[in-house]
């Protein structure tokens, strides 16, 4: 790489971008002008509305009731009162916003029966006299008043209407005030101190300083906004500098110059990074300024209860995190946009990437969300937490370093992807519509007899959606029927249907090749030996990595009992061992592994298919053990070239696991085989020996896999 050349490219790209009105609008105009305008207009409109509501007279209905004079006077001061009868359509009028609210007074039944009054419902502050005058010497416990039970007031209002809500607030304040007064009057009548009904008073004392409060607000708002705006800042230049250049025909010109693709991509990356960084920075400053200015305008000359000032080191740290965000978002956007041929296509690819990047950061802004080792590894989420921590002053150095590490690794990976894409002639010079097959498959242009990676991508996306939206809810309603439908209807049928619809060779796609009987014994050894290994690893994971999930896992294990399924023994085994063996293997070792092998080396294809297989089990706790099983099944399938080998292996594994659950877990032998405090290492050793023997035997039986990378 020649840096003078890269600098020349960068300068030219930047000059061109800065001469583009759209860049200037997104980068400068939007944050510097739009936010203050939006901020000012909305805050003023809001305060005008609040003022208007405060001053407006509400129309209030009294249903079959009258209120005492002082209370009526208070209500009438700012509102219009209408007396209505209960049979009138007042509820409808509230719904139509013709009335703001209605007050009903309900007299307690027993009291109404015992003490008929002239006015049907009159709320007064008067009380009946106590049946016995309390004597000065009497103890308070002996006081006895013949007090009527309290009246019940019901306020009917419309919570979806601003005016009705404001009216309710206003009326409630008046009523509470009047209620206090009524109590006070009652107590005064008997010369009792108001303290009789007041055990204590409550006083708020928020010790958070104005600055701390300001930082709390900033820390909840700034990370997400900063991330969103910085990614947006990278989006447009990335599309313009790659897809836009292809569309304008200038990329071809540039590629004829004596420069390497890496130099071109570096120059472009630096340009996108700069623009993204400037956009993020201007957005941050503008938002901060608009917000603090808005606060100042709201409180006028009064002392601010919220102080948003930050120190120089805050800015420095924020700048560092901003650079990390800009670096990764530029790399992500560059790689996505490089695929595209036109500006429009570029936007189609970058928009989902944009959503995927910032959506998880919402998690960081949730109240109570905590920065953990796991969040430190998730790009963007980790920066959101780091920014939050920086502003609040509780960011640990470890977390910051982990964030730096994780973001850098992912950035480098995306840059590498961009470089790979950019060096791909098919991407640079393709004509016509995008051919994903051409990009990811070596079989471009050839009539396919087996699925390509894009087929797998779409099939698994469809199946994941089906599993998530249909399968899970079906299983919650009826676990046995739900599981059957999931396995056969959502896994088996779509995979076979897809292959048929695309006219693939079913035999080759699903490796429907007979398996010689002699292979079954080594496979049995592999599964029987592998089972303790998987169990021990599951144990270790639950103990070390997810201690808090142990209980969840135990609950899950319990759910796999015959009782919960309500099935007889043979059907139980048929559903949970044979069916998964057939259906899941058809998808993951048949369709998926076969398609991955068109492009990847067998090892990588097996690993990736195993990961997908594990991911579909929707359990983080079981991810690693399931993935290991996937690797074993994948290897067996690849080695024997027959799906029946792995169907047998899968069914056997599930069957053994179920058998352990049914007949061993509650027996004394379980304590010996699966001690709860530590994994049974001797069992692991025995298992490993059997497993290795099985692997060795199978290797001897099928010396070279029939299928190589195609």
């Amino acid at each position, binding site marked *: 790489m020649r840096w*003078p*050349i890269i600098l*020349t*490219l960068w300068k*030219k790209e930047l*000059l*061109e971008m800065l*001469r*583009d009105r759209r860049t200037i609008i997104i980068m400068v105009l939007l944050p510097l002008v739009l936010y203050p305008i939006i901020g000012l207009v909305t805050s003023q409109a809001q305060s005008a509305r609040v003022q208007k509501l405060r001053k407006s007279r509400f129309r209030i209905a009294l249903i079959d009731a009258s209120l005492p004079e002082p209370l009526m006077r208070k209500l009438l001061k700012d509102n219009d009162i209408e007396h209505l009868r209960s049979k009138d359509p007042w509820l409808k009028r509230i719904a139509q916003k013709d009335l703001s609210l209605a007050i009903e007074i309900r007299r307690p039944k027993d009291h109404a029966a015992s003490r008929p009054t002239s006015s049907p419902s009159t709320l007064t502050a008067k009380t009946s006299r106590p049946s016995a005058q309390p004597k000065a010497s009497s103890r308070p416990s002996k006081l006895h008043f013949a007090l009527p039970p309290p009246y019940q007031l019901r306020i009917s209002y419309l919570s979806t209407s601003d005016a009705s809500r404001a009216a309710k607030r206003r009326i409630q304040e008046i009523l509470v005030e009047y209620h206090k007064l009524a109590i006070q009057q009652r107590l005064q009548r008997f010369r009792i101190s108001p303290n009789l009904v007041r055990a204590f008073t409550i006083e708020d004392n928020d010790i958070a300083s104005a600055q701390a409060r300001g930082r709390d607000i900033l820390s909840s708002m700034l990370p997400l906004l900063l991330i969103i705006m910085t990614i947006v800042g990278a989006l447009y230049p990335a599309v313009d500098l790659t897809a836009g*250049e292809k569309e*304008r*025909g*200038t990329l*071809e*010109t540039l*590629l*004829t*110059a*004596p*420069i*390497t693709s890496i130099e071109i991509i570096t120059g472009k990356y630096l340009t996108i990074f700069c623009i993204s960084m400037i956009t993020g920075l201007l957005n941050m400053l503008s938002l901060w300024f608009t917000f603090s200015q808005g606060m100042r305008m709201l409180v006028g000359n009064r002392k601010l209860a919220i102080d948003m000032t930050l120190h120089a080191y805050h800015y420095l740290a924020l700048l560092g995190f901003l650079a990390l965000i800009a670096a990764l978002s530029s790399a992500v956007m560059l790689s996505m946009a490089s695929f595209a041929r036109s500006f429009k296509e570029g936007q189609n690819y970058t928009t989902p990437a944009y959503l995927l990047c910032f959506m998880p950061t919402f998690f960081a802004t949730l109240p109570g969300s905590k920065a953990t080792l796991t969040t430190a590894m998730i790009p963007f989420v980790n920066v959101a937490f780091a920014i939050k921590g920086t502003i609040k002053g509780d960011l640990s150095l470890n977390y910051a370093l982990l964030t730096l590490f994780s973001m850098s690794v992912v950035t480098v990976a995306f840059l590498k992807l961009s470089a790979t894409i950019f060096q791909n*002639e*098919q991407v*640079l*010079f393709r004509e016509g519509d995008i051919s994903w097959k*051409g990009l990811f498959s070596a*079989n*471009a*242009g*050839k009539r396919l007899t087996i699925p390509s990676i894009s087929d797998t991508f779409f099939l698994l996306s469809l199946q994941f959606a089906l599993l998530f939206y249909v399968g899970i809810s079906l299983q919650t309603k009826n676990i046995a029927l739900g599981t059957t439908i999931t396995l056969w209807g959502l896994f088996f049928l779509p995979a076979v249907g897809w292959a048929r619809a695309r006219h693939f060779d079913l035999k080759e796609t699903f490796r429907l090749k007979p398996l010689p009987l002699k292979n079954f014994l080594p496979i049995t050894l592999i599964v029987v030996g592998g089972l303790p290994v998987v169990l021990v690893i599951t144990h270790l994971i639950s103990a070390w990595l997810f201690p808090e999930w142990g209980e969840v896992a135990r609950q899950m294990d319990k759910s796999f009992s015959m009782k919960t399924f309500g099935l007889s023994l043979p059907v139980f085994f048929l559903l949970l061992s044979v069916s998964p063996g057939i259906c899941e293997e058809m998808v993951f070792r048949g369709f998926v592994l076969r398609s991955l092998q068109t492009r990847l080396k067998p090892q990588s294809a097996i690993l990736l298919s195993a990961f997908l297989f594990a991911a579909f089990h929707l359990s983080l706790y079981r991810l690693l053990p399931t993935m290991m099983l996937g690797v074993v099944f994948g290897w067996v399938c690849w080695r024997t070239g027959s799906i029946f080998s792995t169907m047998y292996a899968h069914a056997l594994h599930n069957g053994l696991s179920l058998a352990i659950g049914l007949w061993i877990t509650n027996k004394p032998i379980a304590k010996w085989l699966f001690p709860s405090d530590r994994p049974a290492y001797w069992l692991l050793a025995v298992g490993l020996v059997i497993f290795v023997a099985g692997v060795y035997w199978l290797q001897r039986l099928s010396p070279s896999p029939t299928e190589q990378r195609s």
Partner: protein
Amino acid sequence: MVSQSPHPSDEKETDLTENTSPSEAPPEQEAPNADWSFRIHGLGKCFGTHWAVRDLSLTLRHGEVYGLLGPNGAGKTTTLRMIAGLIEPDEGSLQLSGVDRDTEPLEARKKIGFVTGSTGLYQRLTPLELLHFFAKLHELPKHEAQRRIDELVDVLGLESFSKQQAGTLSTGQKQRVNLARALLHSPTLLILDEPTAGLDIISADFILKTIQKAREDGRSVILSTHILTEIELLCDRIGILLQGKLVQEGTLATLLQNTQTSSLAQAFLKIVQAPTEQAPSKEQSPAATEEVA
């Protein structure tokens, strides 16, 4: 990227026409070895399973203009892109004035100027900025770059619009800027892929004169166009590409003689519409070739 060719050609030093001409065509007189500026040997490009260009060999003298003809989808653009270094050939070698493209790809690109009818200009840069930018990419010394730019602005008549952003220029003006860009680093070989496409007669004439001038300056030129009069007017030799293979090559007179016709248009049609056995890669469907070319 250069893969092992299933059809390796060992005869590196053989007469170029032996490999490329069909059986009936008599071998052309080849330029003496010392005089050649550009030579490709056994060039091939495969897209998926289709060979867009196969076994293409060609040698050009200094100051020679070579016309590359062929129907749509014959592999012309793929050939020119391979020569320009935009795409990597899957087989074959390319040498430019003693520079081997395989070992010194960037040095080879410094000796090539490439202009197509669809080449875009940076809309928001002026011609002067564009030329200075490319001068830097070619690592021309500052004074040399300035001298060349002044010269090209003068020769190609860019003066009146040299400080206007390219987005505001006419198609003819843009193509002149493109030519200036391609000539800036004094290339040995100038590749022109339909350079007059969409131009009015005055602009097209200007481009043709520039090609003439390049020839006089001793540059080799490969010109691909559908306008046969341009070929007749300018080219010293003509090659006809069909389904990725060079099926005829020679001077205009040789072509006319070989095909027993009186005009290049007739000769071209006769060659292109000849029975398929003339086409060496008959196992490929034309549609498939067109799709990938």
